């Protein structure tokens, strides 16, 4: 009794040990594996979006199959049938062992070799024609142009509004501003696109009198509406997170309210504002419906903001529904998707890791 004073009779050391319970075990495993699936999901998205672009890089194989069949006077068949009836392993080995052969075949069939690096870097995007051209350059120019226009509108407005909300507005007003911004965030992008297409485009055309009714300018402003809530929310969060000791010190030194806001709050929040702008750019870059509806979708390379443009995302949205599964056009669209994904992923990663650590250090006073 002395050795185990707190244990009532009937309990032994054994019985007080944590029991193995099946339900406990199962529930924990189910819950944790579901959570891990989220990470798996990102990987899956990566894998499956990239996977569909792979045929571009194996183009030479198909070309080769075609030529051999032409030589042996078999009926011409394309794609999977051709590969399945001829022994694919052998062809694979041949191409690996003799790269010069395959290069030659490629050279012989320059017209059939429809996708190469030079084609992808070309300035023409004519995916559905006799001699399809998959030049991504005009799409890239269009996307960058519209992103620039859009962020030039969205960032100043959103950041200034956030500054007003965080530094100048009384709390009752702040409680009103936030729901309005949330309301703006709640507009489905198809609604903003529709509004831009039907109302804004006409309005701006009457105002400026340019030629193309739908253009990069209209699209850019419409996308700014989609990006403003993101930039505003992140910026406002960071600004309210600036330690109040900073502001109090500034005020105690005799600075006025606006001086404190402009020279203390704003600089302290710069890394966060930078992150907000990155997230805004990511949103604009990948925005599909507004781009589809309000930019005119003409493939042009020009610096004029009042010309129609076509973006990466809009190209996928407009053309994916009409392509043949598995052909080159389809793969190129997935390639564009991969580019979009990589770009937004990197933006997010930069915003997440670099900027946040800077911010934390700064708020803890480790970096001046």
């Amino acid at each position: 009794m002395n050795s185990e004073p707190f244990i009532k009779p009937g309990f032994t050391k054994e019985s007080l040990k944590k029991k193995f319970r099946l339900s406990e075990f199962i529930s924990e495993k189910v819950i944790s594996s579901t959570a891990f699936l989220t990470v798996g999901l990102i990987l899956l998205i990566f894998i499956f979006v990239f996977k569909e672009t792979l045929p571009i890089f194996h183009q030479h194989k198909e070309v080769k199959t075609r030529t051999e069949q032409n030589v042996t006077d078999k009926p011409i068949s394309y794609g999977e049938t051709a590969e399945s009836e001829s022994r694919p392993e052998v062809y694979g080995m041949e191409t690996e062992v003799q790269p010069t052969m395959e290069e030659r075949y490629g050279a012989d069939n320059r017209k059939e070799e429809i996708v190469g690096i030079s084609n992808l870097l070309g300035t023409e995007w004519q995916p559905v024609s006799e001699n399809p051209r998959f030049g991504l350059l005009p799409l890239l120019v269009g996307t960058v142009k519209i992103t620039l226009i859009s962020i030039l509108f969205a960032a100043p407005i959103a950041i200034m509004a956030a500054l007003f909300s965080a530094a100048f507005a009384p709390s009752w007003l702040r409680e009103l501003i936030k729901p309005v911004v949330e309301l703006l965030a709640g507009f489905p992008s198809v609604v903003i696109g529709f509004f831009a297409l039907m109302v804004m485009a006409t309005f701006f055309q009457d105002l400026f009198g340019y030629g193309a009714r739908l253009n990069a300018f209209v699209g850019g402003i419409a996308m700014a509406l989609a990006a403003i809530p993101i930039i505003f929310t992140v910026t406002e969060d960071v600004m309210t997170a600036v330690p109040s000791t900073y502001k109090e010190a500034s005020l105690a030194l005799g600075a006025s309210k606006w001086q404190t806001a402009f020279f203390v709050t704003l600089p302290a929040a710069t890394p966060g504002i930078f992150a907000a702008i990155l997230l805004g750019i990511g949103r604009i870059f990948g925005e599909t419906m507004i781009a589809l509806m309000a930019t005119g979708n003409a493939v042009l390379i020009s610096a004029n903001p009042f010309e129609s443009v076509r973006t990466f995302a809009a190209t996928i949205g407009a053309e994916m529904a009409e392509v043949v599964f598995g052909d080159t056009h389809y793969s190129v669209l997935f390639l564009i998707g991969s580019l979009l994904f990589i770009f937004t992923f990197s933006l997010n990663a930069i915003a997440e890791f670099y900027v946040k650590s800077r911010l934390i250090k700064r708020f803890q006073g480790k970096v001046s």
Partner: protein
Amino acid sequence: MKRMNNKIKGGLLVGTSALSVVIIVAVVVIILLVIILQGKDRLTWEFLTAFPENGMTEGGIFPAIYGTLLMVLIMTLAAVPFGTLTAIYMSEYANESSIISKSIRFAVRTLATVPSIIFGLFGLGFFIKFVGGGMDSMFLGGQLKWGQPNILWASLTMALLTLPVVIVSVEEAIRTVPRELREASLALGATRWQTIRKVVLPGSKAGILTGTILAVSRGAGEVAPILFTGAAYYLATLPHSLSDQFMSLGYHVYIMATQSANVDETLPIQFATTLVLLLLTFSLNMVAVVIRYRFRKKNK
């Protein structure tokens, strides 16, 4: 003089920042007003309950409403349990500083910033071609049934898109359940899972509901992910099975505004459809805001 200068600068700063707020508010009000004013005349009970007629130039939008609701329902069935379990893991099981927990958090944030069109591509590559195509060749001997766009794949694609919304809001709610309640439950001899089921989850019901509603509102409005995973231009019948295509409000707006033969003639229908979509998403958002507000007040 310097004092004057300072005053002007200050006024300028406050002025421009206030102007920015005014611009944002004005834009929201203008968009709402224009769509309400242009759409309200066409918005009748008949419009909501009738099928489109005459090549969609007349009639109603019932199939689009039905399709949207059905898609959102299937999406909810997939996204809410998945999201809730992840949120439970993050708040109840995970060690906050472990790599696993950090990578899950990063994955959730990444998922929230992936462009919606990428989800569409993923839905096409994974659900339709890989899963659907695989099911066809395994069970149907290559007959095309699941390996093409349909409402199931569209809903699942949308579920991925709305997953972060659910996770974030459920986790926030779970974290507001006081630690003392959990400890009391554990002290009474309840196991961890029993505590979660009987104490934590009932305490965060409002959060799960809010998350669900926000996800539904988001899913109802998104178009890009369903462009090529299941939405259809026009269907004479409602979807009967999971392998049918469906009509959706957002897609309807897009297609009517850009691809229809006589855009001007159908303008009232387009505005009315947009209005219905806005009413649907906004009323859902409003409900979520109210629930969240009452919940926070109760917890204070």
